[in-house]
């Protein structure tokens, strides 16, 4: 029999024992403590041979297993004297500890499923309505909160942060065509007949966006949809929308 494991794969001696029992494919109720003890000790010895640090709790368990084993080898009643009548036999005690521990180990997949399930539902940060509702500063007082509410608030924010962080990096600069830009500009002129050159460059300006906008302006000028005007050198350039009925005259 050969197995490849490391001590940090286990969360303590009970975990290691459960692993050995599972490997041996037997019920906790039916384990032969002598056999399990041997495997457990082999494991610990191999660790020692490799000069690995073993948490003392693993050694305590080893001693306990040896105690159970030796006790079983002696004629009943001799080791504990009269105590045996009312005190649980250590082998049974160990089995029960294993069963109790296994109860929680077995429920872990449920928690993992629930953890994954919750991640399917995204929620948003609460909206700030303090402006709309004109809430007074004095009403802004905190009530019944303690330092752990503060910690919880911090954790909530952290969780949200990791939710939002990639947003900016994930979005590639949008490529925009001249036609699309012409449409956008036409939309703009529907509401305002006169705009300055700077006003049509809104947020997220990229070099590409400027070039496309420039081409769109030239295109619109060419077709007499707009007129460009600059009163003096380095002054604002005005873009004026030409009303439909006026276009004929220019055309």
């Amino acid at each position, binding site marked *: 029999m050969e197995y490849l494991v490391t001590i940090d794969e286990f969360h303590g001696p009970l975990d290691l024992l459960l692993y050995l029992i599972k490997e041996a494919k037997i019920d906790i109720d039916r384990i032969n403590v002598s056999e399990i003890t041997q495997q457990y000790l082999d494991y610990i010895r191999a660790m020692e041979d490799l000069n690995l640090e073993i*948490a003392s709790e693993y050694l305590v368990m080893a001693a306990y297993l040896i105690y159970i084993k030796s006790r079983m080898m002696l004629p009943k009643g001799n080791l504990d004297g009269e105590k045996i009548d009312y005190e649980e036999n250590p082998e049974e005690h160990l089995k029960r500890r294993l069963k109790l521990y296994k109860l929680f180990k077995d429920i872990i997949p449920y928690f993992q499923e629930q953890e994954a399930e919750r991640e399917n539902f995204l929620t948003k940060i609460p909206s700030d309505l303090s402006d709309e509702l004109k809430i007074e500063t004095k009403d802004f007082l905190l009530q019944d909160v303690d330092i752990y509410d503060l910690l919880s608030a911090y954790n909530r924010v952290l969780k949200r942060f990791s939710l939002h962080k990639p947003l900016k990096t994930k979005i590639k600069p949008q490529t925009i065509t001249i036609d699309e830009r012409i449409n956008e500009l036409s939309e703009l002129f529907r509401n305002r007949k006169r705009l300055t050159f700077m006003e049509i460059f809104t947020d997220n300006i990229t070099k590409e966006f400027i070039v496309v906008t420039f081409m769109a302006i030239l295109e619109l000028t060419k077709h007499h949809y707009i007129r460009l005007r600059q009163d003096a050198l380095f002054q604002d350039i005005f873009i004026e929308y030409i009303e439909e009925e006026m276009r004929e005259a220019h055309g």
Partner: protein
Amino acid sequence: MDRTQLLAALEGLLYVAGDEGFTKEELANILEISSKEVEELVEAYIELCTDEVRGITVINTAGHYRMATKKEYIDLFRKVYTGNKKRLSTAALEVIAIVAYKQPITRAEIEDIRGTNSENVIRKLVAMSFIKEVGRLDTPGKPILYGTTNDFLDYFNLSSLDELPELADDVEKEVDEEKDLFDSMTKIKITE
């Protein structure tokens, strides 16, 4: 407000509250209807959200109704919101499970069940606000008693602790019955 307005008001309220959500009682208070009616109203709203044209729904975690995106489009939303990929470690889940079922519980009791030192895991879970001090045991040293928090319920998509599945009950019953004995055994171990 009539039914239509109540549904609209509910949607408006849940939108603003976002991840904070509202309890049944809070909604009853705001909308001036009974808790029972709130329940029915939320049910009706969730029913409306089953329409394929809708991308949101309402979940109930930690006793709070929270508006949330629908599961069906999570892959698309993940393109923008990658979320918290970090899952809890097995050790952390072991401790969480023990606290969830055995609360209030001391560190010594947790370590007894796990058979291993659990100080760091407990510290981490307290720092993540999944468990917290809920009192002290009246024994020498006044050990801290731990219990789960609302953040725990929300993280595991639970509306309340009642939703936890039962542990394999035959073993637990046995364990409970013999708990006194178990306790006396561990005490002996400690004094050794």
